[in-house]
């Protein structure tokens, strides 16, 4: 076994092991162990990224059991990109949570509510393990199990936010579980026809199938289920309360990477597990239409918020739309030659990866302000920027990424999406991208501008108190996200090379 293969296994199993271990430890030790594990996971990501950069596809067959019963881990391009992004977000958020324990929620001690929740650490490490397993899984069964691990830990992570977070958490649980049940039903149907769960074997078995009805039915179930978990427009209403009621250290994880896990599973099913089935394009057009609606409606709803965290959450709803706008273009490639499809695919992944970093930064900043000022009402936050120039600078950099201005992955993604749209003569995509960009400029300005206004902060308000050293460190976390948003914009070409490794075409 090479070190890269070992890393594949370690990426999924090390955080899980650490999650179990942290359960047994007292709170301060949990923080130290959490930071250590985060650094180790980032360390294990490096060899996988390295081998994919050199064009190699690393596979690991756990325990030597082969498909269809064994567990296959595949470190391909899609996995490498999301592993990298998740490690970046994970390490920074872990550091933030360790420095500012206040951001990990609230729990009831013997007498009163205490800020900081020891349950954050095992849950977050368990969630991270599930995320890595989703990216690396080579079969539908493990995709289901790890997606479920991500979903359940994410619900519990929302719930550590204290009383106000319990109802949003329960609502999230209902939708997440209903979504994964539909996914399970779809996977079961596929397995009943093909007799295997391995992605490649499923595809080759389905290629031989004459009747397209059953794969189409399975794909519809899978798509509807996963669209619930990604929060595509008509199924988006759980996202806003859950992501805004979650503790400050949890919202960036949820909006940044947890919904990407469902997106990765959706891509695996559409592009890897199923061949081009007649009738699939209708489903793709439906997703595209819902994506357009999400971009427009999500942005307008974001404009109407008067609190910062819900505004950022609605911006997530709008950004989700872009990924689905790319779906009709993805399928074009299947019929008329690969480059078109791969352009839309690169654009989709670049948008999702850029969104993960930028949105994690913006949510960390919003949570930071909420923890510091005791509220995230924008009218109460007027002038808060005077004490936090670094934070505001970093928020601006993240906003550049969400807008898709050069240089950022958001720009690369929108550019590739638009190029693919022109190639396929789908001009409406350009209109949607332009409208979405203008609207997002409006709502981001609405969110950030009040912080910059000159305003008299009353002397007894929490925002007027001296900024502690730890809080300054917390601001650095947001700054890292901001710099990474701009910095990753330079990696657009490298991203395209990575995605070619182990791609479906």
């Amino acid at each position, binding site marked *: 076994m090479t070190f890269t293969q070992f890393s594949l296994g370690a990426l999924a199993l090390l955080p899980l092991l650490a999650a179990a271990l942290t359960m047994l430890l007292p709170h301060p030790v949990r923080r130290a162990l959490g930071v250590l594990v985060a650094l180790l996971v980032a360390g294990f990501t490096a060899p996988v990224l390295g081998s994919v950069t050199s064009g190699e596809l690393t596979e690991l067959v756990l325990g030597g059991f082969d498909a269809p019963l064994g567990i296959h881990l595949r470190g391909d391009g899609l996995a490498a990109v999301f592993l990298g992004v998740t490690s970046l977000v994970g390490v920074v958020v872990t550091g933030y949570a360790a420095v500012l324990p206040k951001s990990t929620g609230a729990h009831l001690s013997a007498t009163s509510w205490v800020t900081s929740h020891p349950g954050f650490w095992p849950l977050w490490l368990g969630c991270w393990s599930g995320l890595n397993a989703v990216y690396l899984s080579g079969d539908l069964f493990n995709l289901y199990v790890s997606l479920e691990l991500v979903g359940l830990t994410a619900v519990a992570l929302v*719930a550590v936010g204290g009383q106000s977070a319990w109802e949003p958490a329960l609502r999230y649980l209902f939708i997440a579980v*209903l979504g994964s049940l539909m996914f399970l039903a779809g996977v079961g149907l596929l397995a*009943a026809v093909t007799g295997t769960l391995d992605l490649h074997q499923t595809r080759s078995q389905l290629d031989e199938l004459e009747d397209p009805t059953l794969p189409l039915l399975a794909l519809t179930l899978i798509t509807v289920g996963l669209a619930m978990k990604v929060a595509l427009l008509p199924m988006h209403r759980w996202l806003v309360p859950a992501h805004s009621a979650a503790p400050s250290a949890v919202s960036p994880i949820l909006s940044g990477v947890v919904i990407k896990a469902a997106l990765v599973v959706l891509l695996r099913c559409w592009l890897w597990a199923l061949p081009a089935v007649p009738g699939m394009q209708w489903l793709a057009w439906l997703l595209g239409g819902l994506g357009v609606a999400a971009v427009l409606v999500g942005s307008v709803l974001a404009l109407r918020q008067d609190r910062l965290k819900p505004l950022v959450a609605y911006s997530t709803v709008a950004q989700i739309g872009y990924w689905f706008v790319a779906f009709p273009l993805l399928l074009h490639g299947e019929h008329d030659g690969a480059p078109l499809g791969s352009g839309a695919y690169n654009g989709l992944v670049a948008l999702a990866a850029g969104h993960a970093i930028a949105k994690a930064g913006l949510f960390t900043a919003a949570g930071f302000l909420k923890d510091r000022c005791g509220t995230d009402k924008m009218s109460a936050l007027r002038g808060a920027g005077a004490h936090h120039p670094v934070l505001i600078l970093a928020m601006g950099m993240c906003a550049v990424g969400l807008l898709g201005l050069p240089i950022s992955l958001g720009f690369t993604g929108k550019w590739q999406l638009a190029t693919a749209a022109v190639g396929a003569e789908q001009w409406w995509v350009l209109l949607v991208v332009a409208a979405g960009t203008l609207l997002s400029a409006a709502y981001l300005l609405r969110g950030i501008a009040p912080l910059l206004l000159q305003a008299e902060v009353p002397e007894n308000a929490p925002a007027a108190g001296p900024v502690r050293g730890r809080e300054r460190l917390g601001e650095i976390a947001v700054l890292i996200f901001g710099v990474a948003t701009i910095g990753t914009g330079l990696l657009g070409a490298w991203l395209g090379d990575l995605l070619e490794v182990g791609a479906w075409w």
Partner: protein
Amino acid sequence: MVSVDTISWYLLVSTVMIIFGTVRLLLVRDLLARLIALDVTGIGVLLALVALAARSESSDPVLQALVITGLVIAVAFTGLGAVLIRRIEGLREDGGGGDRS
């Protein structure tokens, strides 16, 4: 050998369970009733998988593995949901005090 008719029957039952469970989940307001509706939907899905697994002479191990995992996950989400519901209802009853467990 299980006859095809028995399997169609079970598939029909499971479809009805899934539909009833989903509709109830989306329409009802009572939290406990919603959790149980979700369980009914879950059992419906698992029943469909068991029925599909039983089509051949020796039942399909892959589908059975899916069902067993599905059961474990159903226990997990029911537990998590029950804890959350107890806390929320405790909160409503004593007006903001919350449940301590």
